[in-house]
């Protein structure tokens, strides 16, 4: 069967089971947009290519399947660089297709030419510049294989316009042996010696902690993790990237570690004698000052990517494996720590003394952002998906929401990309239309990508956005307040400009506003009754509210600052 390169590209995506492409056309990718008309694949037309990338990420995080985005060459391609970098940092499986100028024009500074494979070399797991139409099926199959296996990540395919216009004989690789990836070995056999060494360390441990990272979600380790944790009674912490990998309601769960982590989670790591890292990478937002991090701990490091071993923290045992297989093996080998009663007693006193805290709102004052999140949570069905932007609101969302299952937290971790929330929520809802999807957003973040609500309305993707409108780039304001002597530089945004309600309405969404506790409850109820169009709520929150606990950048985790109301009685 003879097909054009463009037809072969779309047919290849169909072969890979793609159900939705997020994209926006232009000159170089034009040929590929023609066969989309006849394809079973849904195309979501975004308003900015950054939106397409974050939607694909949100889709991937909520469904576990790779997200697909398609854009044109030059500025279309550069507009999606931020989401690619974001997906690279968070190991999110993406396949990004970019148009390119015709092969003969490459290197001539042709109209809308840009070296996107060069630009994205360091922020993709791999990328391809296609040279002929015949190569398209193999490149697409390889891209999906690479994006989804081993340590997942974004893969970019750059397709010149003449390639999509020329003819090819249709074929499709029937196995990974045909992908021509002689150097790609995503998984290695489990090292039985390493498992045995790990078991020995666990058996001797009196104060162990299971430090669970994003890799646990990537390998869908939740069942094995729960079984192992419950049998061994070890305390569990889940990083920002792992929220949902272990139920927040579980009594062994201490919550999130790190800069804005729970006191008990942070302190348990500091005091532990064995840190079992499961798909986590000792990010500086978790470790604080590395030399002071978990100073008494031996470390067992489980990761599918061997380059993570001893990168930040020296470990005693390394297990190169996906989290599911490693945890199953440790469990099957009967690894059992010492009696943990004393350890748990200590942990419980930290939990009791230093819970999450914020000042009770006064009746006439502005809303407490933490309370807004608690109210939305209380009014939400189990399994509700939460996306967020980056800033204080993100930390509060991670702290105050209760994540009970994988795929419910859609967030930008490693890159901290403001503006991620709205498009990511749209992507998540496109992938899980059965779920309610809330975006807990900041006023600053919302202004970066809000135009995608037009996409959401046009495409019938009814997400709900809660703007925690504190009139500031709040997280930066917090740092200026605490570390720059309250010298506020370029962080004020103005709660009334833009008018978020009118803006929402202009984009075809329902716009609501709440200033008081009563209004807050009322608008959340209204929002939950609307299921056909997106809803945006402007919650007026107190600008002075800060995120606690907090470990200052570069400080030791021992110097964690709790909420002022909890200080002093030591």
């Amino acid at each position: 069967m003879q097909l054009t390169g463009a037809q072969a590209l779309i047919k290849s995506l169909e072969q890979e089971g793609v159900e939705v492409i997020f994209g926006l056309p232009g000159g170089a990718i034009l040929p590929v947009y023609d066969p989309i008309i006849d394809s079973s694949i849904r195309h979501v037309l975004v308003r900015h290519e950054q939106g397409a990338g974050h939607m694909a990420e949100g889709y991937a995080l909520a469904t576990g399947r790779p997200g697909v985005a398609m854009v044109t060459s030059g500025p279309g391609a550069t507009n999606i660089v931020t989401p690619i970098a974001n997906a690279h940092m968070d190991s999110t499986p993406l396949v990004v297709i970019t148009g390119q100028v015709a092969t003969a024009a490459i290197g001539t500074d042709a109209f809308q030419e840009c070296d996107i494979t060069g630009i994205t070399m360091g922020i993709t797991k791999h990328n391809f510049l296609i040279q002929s139409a015949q190569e398209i099926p193999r490149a697409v199959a390889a891209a999906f294989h690479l994006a989804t296996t081993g340590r997942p990540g974004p893969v970019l395919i750059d397709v010149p316009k003449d390639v999509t216009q020329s003819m090819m004989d249709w074929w499709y690789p029937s196995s990974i042996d045909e992908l021509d990836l002689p150097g790609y070995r995503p998984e290695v056999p489990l090292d039985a010696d390493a498992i045995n060494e790990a078991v020995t360390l666990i058996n001797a441990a009196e104060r162990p902690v299971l430090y669970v990272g994003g890799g646990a979600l990537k390998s869908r380790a939740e069942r094995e993790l729960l079984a192992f944790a419950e049998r061994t009674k070890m305390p569990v912490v889940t990083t920002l990237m792992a929220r949902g990998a272990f139920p927040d309601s579980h009594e062994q769960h201490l919550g999130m570690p790190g800069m804005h982590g729970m006191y008990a989670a942070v302190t348990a790591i500091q005091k532990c004698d064995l840190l079992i890292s499961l798909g986590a990478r000792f990010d500086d937002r978790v470790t604080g000052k590395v030399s002071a991090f978990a100073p008494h701990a031996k470390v067992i490091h489980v990761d599918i990517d061997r380059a993570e071993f001893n990168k930040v923290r020296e470990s005693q045992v390394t297990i190169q494996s996906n989290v599911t297989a490693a945890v199953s093996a440790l469990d099957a080998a009967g690894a059992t720590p010492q009696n943990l009663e004393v350890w748990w007693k200590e942990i419980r006193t930290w939990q009791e003394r230093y819970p999450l805290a914020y000042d009770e709102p006064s009746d006439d004052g502005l809303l407490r952002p933490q309370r807004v999140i608690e109210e939305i949570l209380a009014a939400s069905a189990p399994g509700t998906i939460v996306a967020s932007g980056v800033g204080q609101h993100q930390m509060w969302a991670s702290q105050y929401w209760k994540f009970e299952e994988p795929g419910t937290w859609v967030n930008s971790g490693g890159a901290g990309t403001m503006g991620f929330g709205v498009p990511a929520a749209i992507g998540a809802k496109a992938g899980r239309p059965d779920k309610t999807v809330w975006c807990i957003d900041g006023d600053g973040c919302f202004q970066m990508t809000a135009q995608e609500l037009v996409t959401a309305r046009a495409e019938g993707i009814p997400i709900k956005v809660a703007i925690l409108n504190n009139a500031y780039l709040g997280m930066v304001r917090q740092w200026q307040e605490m570390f720059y002597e309250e010298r506020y530089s370029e962080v004020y945004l103005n709660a009334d400009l833009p008018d978020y309600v009118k803006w929402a309405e202009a984009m075809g969404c329902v716009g609501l506003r709440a200033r008081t506790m009563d209004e807050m409850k009322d608008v959340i109820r209204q929002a939950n009754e609307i299921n056909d169009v997106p809803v945006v709520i402007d919650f007026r929150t107190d600008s002075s509210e800060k995120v606690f606990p907090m470990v200052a950048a570069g400080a030791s985790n021992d110097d964690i600052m709790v909420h002022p109301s909890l200080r002093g009685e030591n």
Partner: protein
Amino acid sequence: MAPEPYLGPETHTPVRHHILSVLVENKAGVLARVAGLFARRGFNIYSLAVAPAELHERFSRITIVVDAESAPLEQIVGQLYKLVNVVDISDLAPSDAVERELLLATIPTNVDSRTGLLDVIGEANAAIVDVDAHHVTVMLAGTPHGCDAFEKALESYEGVELHRTGRVALPRLGTPPESEKDPE
């Protein structure tokens, strides 16, 4: 005060260097991927040589001399393996490797200086590969140290044009490369 310009390492042989022999797919952009990785991660390269690998057109071999002070070797190797086009890496400690390098130099000469120069060439075991009335071009295939010494010996001549290829290496016979050794 402006900082003094950095003129590069004083010798070509770093104190704690390691030789990585990296088998890569022979595809467009692979060298850029490898070089980009080193730049991005702050790993220092002392020299790099690329050529088609034995027998296969599908693969090339990149011999990289890395500064094992700039990053732990484990990190460098781990990150390299993540490049999809990297097929295999063998890492050689200098003591386990046979290292060779090629040096070419064109030296201006006249009747007076020619005899002395011939002595220098002879002592170094270099060979004359080209001559005209005012120059000789010599070649030395030798150890990196030998090339260093020869380069130093040529310093007293004005207007020398000198190129070195960077080293290539193979395991010394009888000593397995480190990556294949049993971990103790």
